[in-house]
């Protein structure tokens, strides 16, 4: 199982401000290992989905061009304090992770 991911969600007026920090090496497959000179195999998150109270709000496709330990911020109009945010990701090796947080 992959490392945990962190979510912070806060209401600003009627808009929920959601910040997600995922834990992932995001190897592009183009970087060489400094010691062996071999290419480091590609290993990056390909898909991120987010939902609030079970309703999808975001579906993102990613490439290795996203920085290591990806940060993602988005805003959603309508939710209330106490609503539940769930974020899932899947990487190119089929690993997956999920986390949830309550909007505060």
């Amino acid at each position, binding site marked *: *199982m992959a490392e945990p991911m962190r979510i912070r969600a806060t209401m600003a007026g009627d*808009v929920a401000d959601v*910040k997600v920090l995922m834990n992932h090496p*995001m190897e*592009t497959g*183009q*970087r*060489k290992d400094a010691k062996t000179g071999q290419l480091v195999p590609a290993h990056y998150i*390909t*898909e991120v*989905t987010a*939902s*609030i109270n079970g*309703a*999808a*709000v*975001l*579906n*993102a*496709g*990613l*490439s*290795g*061009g*996203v*920085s*290591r330990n*990806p*940060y*993602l*911020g*988005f*805003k*959603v*109009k*309508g*939710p209330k304090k106490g609503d539940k945010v*769930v974020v*899932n990701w899947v990487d190119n090796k089929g690993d*997956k*992770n*999920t986390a*949830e947080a309550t909007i505060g």
Partner: protein
Amino acid sequence: MNALRRNVLKGATGAGAVAVAVAAGLLKPTQVMAAAPRSAFEAKNVGDALKGMGVSAPADSKDITIKAPDIAENGAVVPVEVTSGIAGTTAIAIIAEKNATPLVADFNLMGGAEGFVSTRIKMGQTALIRAVVTAGGKTYTAAKEVKVTIGGCGG
């Protein structure tokens, strides 16, 4: 598949709250509205990436704001924030034009999500960061140049 079933069953019969949560995550059905096809992410130039996304000749728009540093000292971590003031924005894609694979990320927004995304990307060299916004079936674009002193790809 059987291993998955077994884990799920184990979780459900009280192996602990964590196991249950994991099982719930694994069982979550894939959401509708797929992002751009993977081929678009593997495209080696901006034209092919746009073609892969099914976008042709997006219109320049002043309603798209790209917030990124003018000079990025470290190309491995370049904060990028895109705000679309276009009503009915349903997707925002971020492209680093001179990266080996320019399409960095494509965000589909729904269910009340605003025309805003914030993330951190890698840049191989000084280039334009381009945002491609889809709203009401049309595509719009804007770009901002970021100077990179140390590249964040390859090496």
